[in-house]
């Protein structure tokens, strides 16, 4: 299963990247393909392609500020969580999504 995500915190210096790292690592551990786009002080990095989004079973917004280019995700199942939550409990977020999607 593929899951994509976006992380973005107010200053875009640290939390954005920590949350991204945690989600990717947790995905790896759980055998999921997780790709995370960061929207930090350096702008958008590791940008999600239309194909990434099309193939994703779910989208995670781990954000403390509005998401840029949000229209890309129209019609997708979006899970919105706090940046802190993603850093502290990335695995349980992914687990919850997994359970809900029933796979």
């Amino acid at each position: 299963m593929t899951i994509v995500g976006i992380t973005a915190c107010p200053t875009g210096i640290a939390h954005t990247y920590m949350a991204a790292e945690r989600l990717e690592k947790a995905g790896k551990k759980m055998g999921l393909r997780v790709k995370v786009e960061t929207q930090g002080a350096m702008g958008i990095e590791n940008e999600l392609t239309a194909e990434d989004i099309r193939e994703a079973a779910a989208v995670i917004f781990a954000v403390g500020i509005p998401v840029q280019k949000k229209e890309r995700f129209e019609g997708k199942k979006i899970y919105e969580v706090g940046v802190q939550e993603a850093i502290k409990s990335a695995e349980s977020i992914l687990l919850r999504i997994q359970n809900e999607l029933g796979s």
Partner: protein
Amino acid sequence: MALEYRFSFPLPLGLHARPASLIQEAAARFTAEVLWDNFRNGRTADARSVLSLIGTDTQHEDPCRLRVQGEGEDELLRALRLLMDDELAEREKKAEAEQAEGLGKAGIPRILGLEKAVFFRGVPAGPGIARGPVVVLDPALEMSPGNLPPAGPAGEETQAYIAAAAALEEEWRRRREAIDAGTERAVLDAHLSILRDPAFSAKVAELISSEKTGAAAAVLQASRVFCDLLQASRSQYLRERMADIRDVSRQLVHRLAGTNLPEEKLWLDSPSILIAEDISPSQFLALDKSLLAGLGLESAGTTSHALIMCRARGIPAVTGCPGLREKLNPGEEAILDGSRGLVIPSPSPAVGRYFEREMRADEERRAVRRKYALLPGRTEDGRSLEIAANIGHPEELPAAWKDGAEGVGLFRTELLLMDRTTPPGEDEQFAVYERLAAEAEGRPVIIRTFDIGGDKPIPFLPLPAEANPFLGGRGVRLYGRFPDLIRSQLRAILRAASRGPLKVMFPMVGAVEEMARMKELLKQVHEELAAAGIPHRPEVEAGMMVEVPSAALLIDRFADHTDFFSIGSNDLLQYLFAADRGNPAVRDLASPRHPAFLRLLRTIVETAHARRRWVGLCGEAASDPRLLPLFVGLSFDELSMTSSAVPEIKARIRELTSAACGDLLKTAEGLASAREVEELLVSFERRERKSDLITPALVRVGSDSRSKAEALQELAVMMEAAGRVRSRDDVEAALWQREETFSTDIGFGVAIPHGQTAAVLSPSVGFLRFAAPVVWDAGGEPVEMAVMLILPAPDPDREHLKLLARLSRRLVDEEFRAKLRTSPDAAAVAGMISSALAGE
């Protein structure tokens, strides 16, 4: 039949003045009697008296009872119940929120807001922090009972008090009717409520009958009793009430004891913070300075003699704090922060600790400054640039030399004209200039003649009112009208110059004739002195301030009449850009970074050098370290600034090379705006510093910080000590701003405080490992380590952002954190973080 209501007191801070006044207001609307019983301590109060209510010493959750009896008792009890159950807490929250507003402002440590501390903000007047008991210089309240009339029979004293109170009440009521709503009326209302307060008169009567004191002494003592009560609570509002009580008491005492109160005597018998409205130079001199820990004044200007002397002696001082004498209680402990302009009475332990740590940091800062002060004013490639001080009083010389000033580039003489009704005589001036010459010990001192006019009125100089004084009679332009004034000044300077290397400089010169006249006058004065056989130096170096743009464009012609030039950048800027520096709407237009200004400076310096005249700059811009590369590029011979800026400028100049600065200047002159130049300066500074993100100086493996507030303070101080930041306060404020958006506790016992601020010179990582885990957020897990990331703003090159993103990603890795947790010393931690940043 009496009604009653039992409750436990709802407010965490207890029944202090603000809620007490709400209760009193409610009670006063009815004629029914209301009594307040506190079952914890058995005290009972009349609820129609604020002071009486406060006197119950009611604390949070004390069991209490209200008893109501009389007309309207049902309705009154309902109102009081609503107040207790609901409104009191609500209104208290609102009042606190209002108080908290403004706490986030720059220069106010966040700890004061966190601790809900009472503090007063004035104007910084002498850097440093003092802590100690308060001594209040106040004629009425510091009188010893011996100075008061002896006590008569109790009955007469009581009558005298009642009569005095009634007369005062009558007077205030009449005044109150004569004025419309507004501050003054509010003040009178507050005073009247104290005067009418039954608890206050009851206390006075009790003291008269039981202690056999006179009415005046009883008023003073009652005032003390209630002020001591109020002091205990942390409320700004309550401090105002304390001021009211003192003010009312003072006026009562004046009525009772007559207005011929003895002149106050001023002495200290242990290290203290002295609080006064203002103090005269003679009072200051009479003080034992070794016991003067700090000075807080209500109304003195920062250039008052007492404050100049404080700064010269390194005594922390604050001024511009109205009502300070009344709001502080004699003998209470206080902290005075002369760098930020704060006075904090009765600090909580956490506030006390914070400022103790600040004092320690100050001490370290002074040691670093002493080191910098010894450096020569020379660039890395060996070009000399004299770094001098601007002063206004000979008392400031020792501090200037200690700061490393190589001379006095500007001695302002206007202080000689202040606060007096007749002009200073020649001998009086001579005494001042001679002292300069003697204490200069061979260093050059430039005396600027009186810069009169502009907006500064001088009582004994009849200056006409002008629509636009800054473009009218000012400086040298006025000397023709006051020939005796300038003549006596030049005579005094020539006489004093025989004792040391004095130079003279004329302000506001715009026309060549003006300078020629001054040279001629100097010659005349010399001839007069010679004829009279008075010892003097026949000729001194005479220079001019360059403040008027027309003069700046005619330097070659001025060079025929002048020995040197000193650019008064403050005025030259406002005249060049037609923008008043005091007007916030246009102030930014007159920037010393503007390419137009830089081009003008180049013209001045090049033309002067071609005529073998030296050029200095003595405006505020001289003390800005970021502008220094441009001034080096311009080949200035001298920069003169407030002496406290000298050490940092000296430290910075030795990092610069003339070639790089020359190139920088050329680029800057080709730009279009001050903003573009600022960006250029920022990137120049960063490029040139190329400092590592982290060094062992930014790591502490045994931090003694006990709270988030202390941790952020420690990080900011570390940044300052490492020379990476202009203002440590800005770093702390930036970190706090971030914390308040959402916590930087990322779990796993790690917090990553971070932020961006223009104050930071180079992107930095700081690290604290706490000796004992610190509670980062109320209710959260304690934190063992804090990793700080701080970046400059604005931020033209974003390379380091990538590095910090990399570090952030590493920090969520358990193995990496474990290494940080166990790493033996600062160097090892710095090394680990450096490799993580390098992607290893």
